[in-house]
């Protein structure tokens, strides 16, 4: 229960920071996907089921503050969370570079899903070089912020009985 509250708080904090702090910290007019990076951390910590569901909820919360149709971020975050969760189950060792690598690749994958889904539902100009430029910049930015976001969110996502069943990685 407390874990769920912690994860809900992460969603609220991500939405607030995304709509305030990161509007001032844009690179070439592009902000990172803080919510998506948090989803990657949760999916890595807890697997595909939680990754998909948490991705959907985080995306839905983010969508409420975007001018693109509600559900687009939910769709891309859910698929990305699921994919990272599946990938995580097959990984035996981790690396210190895990957070930036996952942030970069996850950001790129999530961005590509977003623009593809956007194009399919009829959003104009989604499949364009400008969209690819935005996705690329955002994914690099995601890689940069991931080392800051991952430890906090993974701690929030950790199950309350984790001390009894501590999983050793890498």
């Amino acid at each position, binding site marked *: 229960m407390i874990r769920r509250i912690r994860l809900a708080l992460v969603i609220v904090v991500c939405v607030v920071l995304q709509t305030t702090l990161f509007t001032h910290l844009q690179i070439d007019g592009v902000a990172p996907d803080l919510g998506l990076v948090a989803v990657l951390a949760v999916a890595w910590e807890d697997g595909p*089921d939680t990754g998909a569901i948490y991705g959907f909820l985080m995306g839905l919360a983010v969508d409420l503050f975007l001018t*693109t149709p509600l559900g687009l971020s939910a769709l891309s975050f859910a698929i990305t969370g699921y994919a990272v969760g599946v990938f995580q189950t097959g990984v035996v060792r981790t690396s210190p570079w895990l957070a930036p690598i996952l942030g970069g690749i996850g950001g790129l994958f999530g961005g590509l899903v977003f623009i593809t889904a956007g194009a399919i539902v009829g959003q104009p100009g989604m499949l364009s070089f400008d969209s690819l430029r935005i996705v690329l910049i955002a994914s690099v930015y995601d890689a940069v912020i991931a080392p800051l976001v991952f430890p906090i969110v993974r701690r929030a996502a950790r199950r309350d009985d984790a001390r009894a069943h501590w999983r050793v990685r890498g």
Partner: protein
Amino acid sequence: MDISRHDRRRRLTLILLIITSLALVSLDERGSGIIDSARTAAQDVVSPLQDAADGVIDPVSEWLDGLGRANELQDQNEKLRRELDAARSAVAAAKASLAELSTLKEVLDLPDIADGDAITADVVDSAGGNFSRAFRISKGTAAGIGLEMPVVVGAAGKAALVGKVVRVSANSAIVQRIDDATFGVGAQLVQADQNGPKGLAEGQHDSSLLRFTVVGQSLTSVALKKGDVAITLGNAIEKYPPGLVIGAVVQTVDAGGAIARNAELRPVVDLDSLTIVKVLRYPPVPVP
């Protein structure tokens, strides 16, 4: 066997989430009152947190912006930028007014936009995400702002259109900029001292310029000249007053017989540097 069942359950969860997402997208695209209410409620809940965060972030951001240059210079720069925007708007609008005058004479009951019908608001920050062009303003329904209201800069009657309200909560609103790829407005070019072709001005995804498309057979034999000003048509189906300046043609497009001809418009104000805007209540609310 158990693993296979577990995998199937996982995939089913994902498929259900994808279907739900697509259903929500479809609902939102059609315009759902429930989704609009959810957005308003979410904005109302998060707005105080955003204000608190802005209260901390804005001074730091301004301080960082001001690093390496004197505060006085920055103030002067902002003042000059506002004056430049107003001057550009006034020059463009003056040109538009010449042609508008003839139309006004024909339409005696044309509503006028007065200062009393405008709500002044501060531009708080950009909004809408990486794939749209929008900004958040400091006032909402509590100040009388509603959905679809046009947002302008400049003096009343000589105003330049900068966007429209697409989300609104009690104390803030999101304004979609005119250069957003999903923005479109009926427009008419003003050429020298006559009315030019009518058409549609739309934002473009990969450019900050707007695309002006001549609609139907509207004066297709007339060239679209560099410097021609596009103003809002004020259709009955749109909530824009006629005569708001949208932008100026960047490059001449020669006359021709083709029905579809495009020109590019540059907005008369710098949409990245807006600090104060006016939201127009249109049609004006009658004074009791």
